[in-house]
């Protein structure tokens, strides 16, 4: 199958190239050019042609939570949002702690033939933080990293051993950092807004204490660690220092946390009930700056579809999480515009930089790379609302917002998997 994407603004975040041109696709890969007539030609005039987005955290809710979302609905959402690769955390029911489950998930995803799915295996059995999973078996089944998702790992000895074991095989460990006892019962940033609203708080040092411990364990084990969902200014500083020191750490931030703060809770907007919690304006500014200067390697959607019933509850009782696959691109563009970044650099945080962490060849426009592409109009405005979202989760703090940047077509392995005219 030969495909020609003609006359678009081709942006390659990996090299910084940004120019009008054609993109040639053959046999699922990008090629220099071809002489024969393409089977399909897409006119990309006026559109940006970029590598498909790579989202390092998107919950597909299968197995176990099909009433919140199905693989099918969320894979539709992914490609509608221009996401061509996604890593899914292991907090399904049952958790992704057995090769059979991982294998099944990958097969199901493959059969749907939309975005590429990279499962993250559970670091401990049932995410209970007690026994290690069979990481080598899980890796063979297709797990690309190991994680506790949002489940706490209270036992530092287990964490140490898990990191040692993962390092033995060279498996990366992806961890959210939060001291479980400090976070227990908390639902919002322990600050002025939580005090005013009477919500139990989670102090920022719940994150930095756990990050401090984790960095010590990285020094002790040499384990390659990706720190997930930073939420505080101090944590950004700590990662910056750790990278300067040469530690093998990378990190990401949820795209919501780049834009929103505790102020957005308003009158108990349960769509702003997120894990980690939205913190102060100062924290938000540091996250946005850290993402711009590269301290934070990439931005993720942390896509978490939640059913309406679980959100129509008092704030503290509402289930945390926000839908995000279809918002990642416009919210990344919004951040890039606010930070005055060139488009290539903005997109790098959701493409090539994520590819580097995931260890995959996609995320760039270069000869031989997988033909995973997104075509979008960076200026097209659309209003976020239930009808505009393919995800089964309609829960987003951006409900009613008008955002710029809308996907026209998404291509995975040379096949058009989404197209909007």
């Amino acid at each position: 199958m030969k495909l020609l994407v003609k006359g678009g603004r081709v942006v390659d975040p990996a090299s910084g190239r940004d120019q009008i041109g054609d993109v040639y696709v053959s046999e699922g890969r990008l090629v220099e050019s071809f002489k024969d007539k393409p089977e399909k030609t897409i006119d990309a005039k006026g559109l940006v042609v970029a590598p498909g987005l790579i989202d390092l955290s998107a919950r597909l809710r299968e197995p176990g939570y099909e009433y919140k979302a199905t693989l099918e609905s969320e894979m539709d959402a992914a490609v509608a949002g221009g996401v061509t690769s996604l890593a899914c955390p292991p907090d399904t029911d049952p958790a992704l702690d057995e090769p059979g489950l991982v294998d099944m998930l990958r097969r199901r995803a493959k059969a749907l033939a939309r975005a590429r799915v990279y499962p993250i295996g559970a670091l401990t059995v049932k995410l209970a933080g007690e026994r290690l999973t069979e990481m080598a078996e899980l890796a063979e089944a297709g797990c690309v990293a190991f994680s506790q998702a949002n489940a706490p790992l209270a036992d530092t000895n287990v964490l140490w051993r898990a990191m040692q074991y993962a390092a033995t095989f060279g498996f990366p460990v992806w961890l959210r950092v939060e001291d479980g006892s400090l976070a227990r019962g908390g639902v919002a940033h322990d600050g002025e807004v939580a005090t005013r609203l009477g919500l139990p708080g989670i102090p920022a040092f719940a994150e930095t204490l756990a990050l401090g411990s984790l960095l010590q364990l990285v020094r002790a084990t040499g384990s390659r660690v990706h720190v997930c969902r930073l939420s505080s200014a101090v944590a950004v500083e700590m990662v910056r220092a750790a990278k300067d020191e040469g530690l093998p750490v990378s990190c990401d931030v949820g795209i919501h946390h780049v834009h929103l703060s505790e102020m957005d809770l308003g009158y108990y907007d349960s769509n702003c009930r997120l894990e980690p919690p939205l913190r102060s304006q100062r924290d938000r500014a540091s996250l946005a700056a850290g993402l711009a200067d590269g301290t934070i390697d990439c931005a993720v959607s942390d896509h978490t579809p939640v059913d309406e019933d679980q959100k129509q509850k008092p704030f503290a009782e509402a289930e945390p999480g926000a839908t995000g696959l279809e918002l990642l691109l416009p919210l990344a563009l919004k951040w890039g515009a606010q930070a005055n970044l060139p488009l290539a650099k903005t997109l790098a945080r959701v493409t090539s930089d994520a590819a580097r962490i995931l260890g995959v060849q996609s995320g760039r426009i270069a000869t031989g790379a997988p033909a995973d592409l997104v075509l979008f109009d960076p200026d097209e405005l659309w209003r976020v609302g239930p009808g505009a979202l393919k995800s089964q989760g309609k829960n987003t703090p951006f409900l009613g917002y008008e955002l710029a940047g809308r996907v026209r077509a998404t291509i995975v392995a040379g096949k058009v998997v989404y197209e909007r005219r």
Partner: protein
Amino acid sequence: MPPSSPHNPQLNANGELQHLLSIEGLPPEILTQILDTAESFAGVTEREVKKVPLLRGKSVFNLFFEASTRTRTTFEIAAKRLSADVINLNVAVSSQSKGESLLDTVANLSAMHADVFIVRHSSSGAPHLIARHVKPHEHVINAGDGRHAHPTQGLLDLYTIRHYKKNFTQLRVAIVGDVLHSRVARSLIHGLTTLGVPEVRVIAPQTLLPAGVESLGVRVFHDMRAGLKDCDVVVMLRLQNERMNGALLPSAQEFFKHYGLTADKLALARPEAIVMHPGPMNRGVEIDSSVADGAHSVILPQVTFGIAVRMAVMSIVAGN
């Protein structure tokens, strides 16, 4: 702020009180209107026929998702004195335990033609959620939600202070004890700052103060003797039993020694200072009996005023 978020969920398009969810965000004119209306009702309570027909034909649903005797009873009395029909629902032991959602419970009651919902819930913000979903002619009054607010208690505290002290703008008020978990404290602080009290103090150990409490406009004291000095009003907060021994406090005894109100500590306040308590009191934990029953105490009048204040709130929202 998302464009969908309401500017002030308590007020209607004319800026009048539609629901009473929190004292925060209410203009001083509305607070004064409530206090003035309550004053006009105070006489009703003294009469032989303690009824006015303002809410005749209206249904008031007492919707208590969290146990309460005193607050529920005072709301019931207040509604009956306004000639309303009062329906008490102890939701804590009925539909919610059968798994019905909060909004379904409210929708069902709404189908029975309610006019006013009096809501108490253990989760902060629950009355806001209900207020967003009721019909335009229905009103929600918050009777205490989590740690967030207890606006009618705050209003009756303001009423009591105004009754004894007249002018808010020359007062020094101290609030003592478990501010961290107290919805009463939050409501009163907002009320006092809105009505122009120049100095509101909170007195507590660090473990019983929420993060950034100064942002509410209060001065923080850890030493009770220093904090009480020259105060005109002393408000003692209840310390819940389950908080007395644990990670927040070592013992009720030690708390009483440092933060309990005794006659000798009270002597540091102004000679004509009044002592308040939202009840129920823990004698010997936050307050000594000699003070609770002493000349400075206005704790029982607070309860009486509470009925007039709740009549005022109900008649105002139902009239708007």
